[in-house]
């Protein structure tokens, strides 16, 4: 660890802006801009603290969900295109074996997995009318919705503590 940490520095910057700079500002535009800066600094703190974990968990959730969708798509009347896209993304390597999982590579991996999910969703929705009474169709869509809730819960960790309860944004 290098002290002060990145988070320590950001908190010092935020405190300086609030206590030293803000009292000097009289214009609405300047005070509005500074308010936004303060919120975004806290947002960056949250991302430093949690973004790696959030992306890691998201990737694991997608790697559990996509094979379920693949099984459904492999049934009669399914979609070869959906199967191929899922197979392709699950086989891809987003970093060399043993390499440190940087935020960029985690984001790339989560993004690619979500693209495959989006394609599957589009197919599922387009065919939902003819299959809406099938339990397996309802089940797979329910699993997707559960995943979405989980993904947004993770995103909330990066956003909500930074903004909510901290006053005007603008």
């Amino acid at each position, binding site marked *: 660890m290098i002290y002060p940490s990145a988070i320590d520095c950001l908190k010092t910057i935020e405190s300086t802006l609030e206590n030293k700079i803000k009292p000097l500002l009289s214009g*609405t*535009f300047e*005070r*509005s*801009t500074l*308010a*936004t*800066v303060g*919120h*975004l600094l806290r*947002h960056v703190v949250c991302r430093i603290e949690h973004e790696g974990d959030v992306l890691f968990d998201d990737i694991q959730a997608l790697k559990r969900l996509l094979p379920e969708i693949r099984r459904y798509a492999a049934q009669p009347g399914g979609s070869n295109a959906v199967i191929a896209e899922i197979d392709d993304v699950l086989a891809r390597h987003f970093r060399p074996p043993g390499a440190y999982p940087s935020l960029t590579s985690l984001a790339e991996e989560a*993004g690619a997995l*979500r*693209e495959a*999910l*989006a394609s599957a*969703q*589009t197919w599922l*929705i387009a065919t*939902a009318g003819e299959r809406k009474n099938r339990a397996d169709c309802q089940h797979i869509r329910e699993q*997707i*919705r*559960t*995943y*979405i*809730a989980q*993904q*947004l*819960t993770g*995103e*909330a960790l990066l*956003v*909500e503590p*930074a*903004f*909510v*309860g901290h*006053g*005007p*944004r*603008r």
Partner: protein
Amino acid sequence: MAAYLRHRLRTPISEVKIQQFPRGSSRETWFIEFLERPGGSPQRLVFRLDFSTGKVIMSELQEEYFIYERLGRTDVPVAAALWWEDDEKWLGRPFYVRRHVEGDWQVAHYRDPDPQYDGVRIATAKEHLNALARVHNVDWRALGFDQRLPVPPSPDRCAHTYVSALENTLSGYRREAMPIFIEAAAWLREHAPVASRIVLCKGTNGYGEEIFSGGHLVAMSDWEEVSIGDPAADFAFMQDFGRDIVRDGQTLWGLDHALAYYREITGTEVAREAVVFYQTLQSLKALLHTHSTAMTVHTRPDAPIRQAWTATEVSHIYKRILATALGIMPAPPTAWFAELNQTVDEEAP
């Protein structure tokens, strides 16, 4: 700016004052005051342009100018559109100019919680609904709006047309997959109401979006989200004027009162359920806008800082609203929404 005004107005210009409107996240708005002759009365114009980093919202600036120009031919209160400027040498990008309307987006005592001002709040809401009724009565075909905006083929397809337009727009700049967007669009199609009429809808409207003077609405502003569709959409995105005013357990005003008043002045029934539906649809649209903003911030370090806020917290809360509609997450607390609408000029010193 003085050089531009001299060029455009072909008259001597002096004492130019320029002020940027601090609110508004969709485009830049600049107030320009100047004298055409020494000792004369100040002239005021409003310059409207996209951010230097690009546009945030899906409609084009020129479309907004078109809307102002065409509405100027109706009884809808709008600032007069004066001219469109294509030449980028002046401000670095195209812009249009409209006449400044004296007034303020704030109404005296509107936000004062003292019950003695409930009458002000209700009268202001009715004033706005009168203006909204005029918008909905506009002959949009005769004015050519159907040449610029998607038109629903029938009242039961208003929401479908709206959702399809959003999907088409998103496909033009989508950077990452958004499973919540796809799932919410499907949910909206499954739950679409039938419109009572097909009308010109203002889009974003209500307190903070219009100009008042002496308690009267003198100009409707912020037309960048105009559409043709269900009047319920305008109630869904109406800021503040459908909010409950409750005293001693009695509801003096609220969405039901607003809908009843609208029915009284127009004869048109708008169902509360349809309004709730369009509130969800508006969140889908807002999510699309925030994604566009995110792309601007991603590619332009000089993006206005407010766009970074729009792309983070604002984007997130719209996802939460959509997740609530899908029944997969609890609703965000109402205090959060109240906080989002606060500005520093309302903050205690």
